[in-house]
């Protein structure tokens, strides 16, 4: 059965596609790109358009429409959205592109003003509702995937335990400390203390921007655990604001040594392990 929508798509297919691609181009240029839309994206959009046309041709307005999440259309759409998300295009632009096709089709359909166009409009609405939903979900999925990846790599990067000298470990803390990171920091530190039989551990807080209740509690746990292993903890680089917060929160670190700078902390650690750095007679020049 040829409904007005199917007829429209059949008769003006190339023209509609051109209009849509033109629209995509203008969205693309609005992004601050002066060159034309890449050929890859054009091809991708073309296959999405073809898929939508096929979908419309295969179903009727009366069908209960459900988009097959495994189908070719969903697949193409997903790939397109992934590309868009990777190049940093906004969600509204990508979804706007899908909605623009709906707008294009419904305007053209309206212009033809045929008898059963209303049913077709409703149908179009339904199809594009689920397409938009799919686009949005795909977009969020891609972004979330990226974020998880990044935070994982950040976690890997940001908690090194360094062996500063024999029996002296250095744990430079940088960035925000949350529960997951705190646990990882503690685990790694304890493991390193056990491996190197460290006598002194220097905890450098220069890179910690904010010290709040939870950070302080995590620190306390880390320090207590380290001391249970028989290592002395030296804290360095606490900011004046940090010191005020810690004190006002009523947090007492007991007999933990505190030093203003990492330099002073290292000197203290060397003294605690009975070592010193001394100048050599003959210098390499």
């Amino acid at each position, binding site marked *: 059965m040829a409904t007005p929508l199917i007829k429209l798509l059949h008769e003006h297919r190339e023209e509609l596609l051109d209009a849509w691609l033109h629209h995509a181009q203008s969205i693309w240029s609005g992004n601050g790109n002066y060159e034309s839309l890449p050929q890859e994206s054009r091809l991708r959009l073309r296959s999405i358009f073809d898929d939508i046309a096929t979908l419309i041709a295969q179903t009727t307005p009366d069908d209960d429409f459900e988009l097959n999440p495994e189908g070719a259309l969903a697949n193409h759409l997903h790939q397109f959205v992934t590309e868009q998300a990777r190049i940093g295009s906004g969600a509204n632009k990508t979804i706007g592109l899908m909605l623009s096709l709906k707008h294009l089709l419904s305007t053209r359909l309206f212009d033809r003003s045929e008898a059963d166009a209303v049913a077709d409009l409703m149908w179009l609405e339904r199809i594009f509702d689920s397409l938009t939903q799919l686009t949005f979900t795909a977009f969020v999925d891609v972004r979330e995937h990226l974020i998880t990846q990044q935070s994982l790599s950040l976690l890997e990067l940001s908690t090194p335990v360094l062996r500063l000298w024999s029996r002296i470990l250095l744990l430079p803390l940088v960035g925000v400390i949350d529960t997951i990171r705190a646990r990882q920091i503690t685990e790694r530190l304890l493991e390193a203390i056990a491996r190197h039989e460290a006598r002194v551990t220097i905890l450098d807080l220069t890179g910690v921007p904010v010290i709040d209740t939870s950070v302080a509690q995590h620190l306390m746990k880390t320090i207590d655990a380290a001391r249970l292993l028989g290592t002395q903890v030296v804290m360095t680089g606490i900011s004046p604001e940090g*010191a*005020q917060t810690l004190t*006002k929160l009523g947090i007492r670190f007991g007999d933990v040594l505190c030093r203003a700078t990492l330099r002073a902390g290292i*000197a203290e650690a060397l003294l605690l392990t009975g070592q010193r750095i001394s100048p050599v007679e003959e210098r390499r020049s």
Partner: protein
Amino acid sequence: MRIPVLSLGRILLVSIQEDLTDSDAMQFQSDLVERVAETEALGVAIDITALDVVDSYMARVINDTAYMVRLLGAEAVICGVQPFVAMTLIEMGRDLLGADCAFNLEQGLEILKGRIAKRGDTRFDEDEDA
């Protein structure tokens, strides 16, 4: 009223001369803490010889300040607690002034110097200069 922070080499000296309002006390606390961090001071003497009355709030402010100073890597000593003040503080609770105390400023500075001499960072200063 702002309390001046005097420096004697790498030791800072503050003397509280009269009763402080709550906001003055906070101001004193943050001034001192900022100064300790800025100058990387090794010791701080807080002199309260002139105070005849120390209420629980003031005691806590002094105590907290001493702790903050320690967190910033300096030694802290409270000097010149008057006998009457000591008695009232004990009445209110033993741990109100938990930091180390000295009879007068002179002894306080002596304690500070002794502690500073034992520290690792001052001991090795000559190594670095060499």
